């Protein structure tokens, strides 16, 4: 009977993976179709939709904007979040648990609500620049991801190692750099990865803060889907998927997916 349970669990896992990958995998062959309709199986083979990416109005600029905002927001979150995490773990801060919950809370609250709140607040303050608004909002969006992983890395880190490094001849900053940083790097990188994705893919917050000229990629894609859906969308999606896989491979080389998996 135990055999049965184990088999059941493995079946569920395989089903889950297939189920999860299905919509992603479907998009890829469609991007190579000759016809301008989303038929499956796709007819013919053509790279025309990939070529069209360059021509589609605003697609590349939206891609650039999303990447820019995501990168900057992630960096700022990493900076603020890591400092905060260090303080919470080592600094005997009163109400540390409450502060932690607060810093992580944007994740649990509906993004849409936050987007609207930002819109309203920024209007009150008089800030109308879409780029700046997006950046501020995205730092909030990315902060929980950074906090969770960096915090858990720091909590697992045995600070006795820093003491050991100091007794072996390292100054305090040198000890932190040589011992602390390499050990929390997985948390750092996986936090950065999560954060970047969360920002890049964000719709509910961004929708309220973009204007006619400044659009992030998800919004542009959705627009495109509503107005003139054609397999270009599939081509863009495929490019994004490939990009993501490359980033994951890069992370594996840098840090090791195994270590990231344990976060």
């Amino acid at each position, binding site marked *: 009977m135990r055999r049965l349970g184990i088999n059941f669990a493995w079946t569920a896992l395989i089903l889950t993976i297939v189920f999860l990958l299905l919509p992603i995998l*479907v998009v890829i062959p469609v991007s190579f179709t000759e016809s301008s309709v989303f038929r499956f199986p796709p007819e013919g083979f053509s790279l025309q939709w990939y070529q069209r990416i360059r021509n589609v109005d605003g697609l590349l600029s939206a891609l650039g904007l999303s990447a820019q905002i995501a990168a900057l927001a992630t960096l700022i979150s990493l900076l603020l979040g890591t400092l905060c995490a260090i303080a919470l773990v080592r600094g005997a801060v009163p109400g540390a648990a409450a502060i932690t919950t607060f810093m992580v809370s944007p994740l649990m609250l509906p993004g849409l609500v936050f987007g*609207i709140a930002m819109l309203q*607040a920024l209007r009150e303050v008089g800030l109308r620049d879409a780029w700046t608004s997006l950046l501020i909002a995205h730092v909030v969006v990315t902060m929980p991801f950074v906090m969770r992983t960096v915090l858990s890395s720091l909590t697992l880190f045995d600070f006795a190692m820093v003491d050991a490094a100091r007794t072996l001849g390292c100054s305090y900053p040198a000890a932190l750099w040589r011992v602390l940083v390499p050990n929390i790097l997985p948390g750092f990188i996986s936090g950065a990865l999560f954060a970047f994705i969360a920002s890049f893919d964000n719709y509910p917050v961004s929708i309220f803060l973009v204007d006619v000229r400044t659009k992030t990629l998800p919004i542009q894609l959705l627009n495109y889907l509503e107005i003139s859906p054609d397999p270009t969308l599939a081509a863009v999606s495929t490019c994004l998927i490939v990009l993501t896989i490359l980033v*994951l491979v890069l992370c594996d080389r840098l840090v090791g997916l195994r270590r990231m998996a344990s976060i």
Partner: protein
Amino acid sequence: MSTRRDPLGLLALPGVAFLGLAFLAPLMLLLWSSIRGPDGFTLNGYWRVLGDEYYRGVILASLQLGLITTFGAFVLGYPAAFALARAKGYWQVVLFALIFLPLTVSIIVKSFGWGIILRRDGILNWLMLNLGLIERPVRMIFTEGALYAGMINVFLPFMVLPIYSVVRMMDARLPDAAATLGASPWYSFTRVTLPLSLPGIIAGSSLVFSLAVAAYVTPSLLMGDRYMTMSMVMAKAFLNLRDWQLGAAMAAVMLAVAAFIVVGASLLQRRVGGR
């Protein structure tokens, strides 16, 4: 560094201050505006949201969507998390990456992919036609079933990962011990494994529920106006109707639901935990 205690605490300040200004303050402002009408204080917005049968229905529909998504994700995700936690060596890393990868793919791409699968001329119909299961293409897109499938697809990893991380830490000897004491595999599962994985279940379920209840992109793409959720009503109110009061009130309701989930989950965790 001589005194490492107090000065270090100040490092938290920039982060907390930023979040306080950029996150908390706008939310407070939103709640404030939900009770402010053109003539001063008013609960008009709330009356409309909670009093109107239509909007009540929308709230219930969102809750229903959340529940079904959570349940579906649990049924598939719980055993999957188990298998993942017990996978050995390199396989575990690969399988983990495969579960993680869909999280990195845009929700729009995924919903778009579902559209392709479910269309009249999509894969599922093509498969079923060729296998002789149906005679004519079945309309699956824009059905509630498709919505649930799409929602579960998007949020499944959020159920698997927390359960996986809890199960991983469980002593692998415990089911052995139960067996040597004469417990049948079912008894061992229900009395040992399940209770010990409860923290993970609570974490995963609360996460999926809170995300599903507030979902916007997936219901819009897969159902459009046919299944209105709280978030869709709210977005419409702000973007299309410019009815700020309605929007803000709906937003407040969503916040209340989210807060309820967070508090409820942490209470449950405390009751279950203590280890």
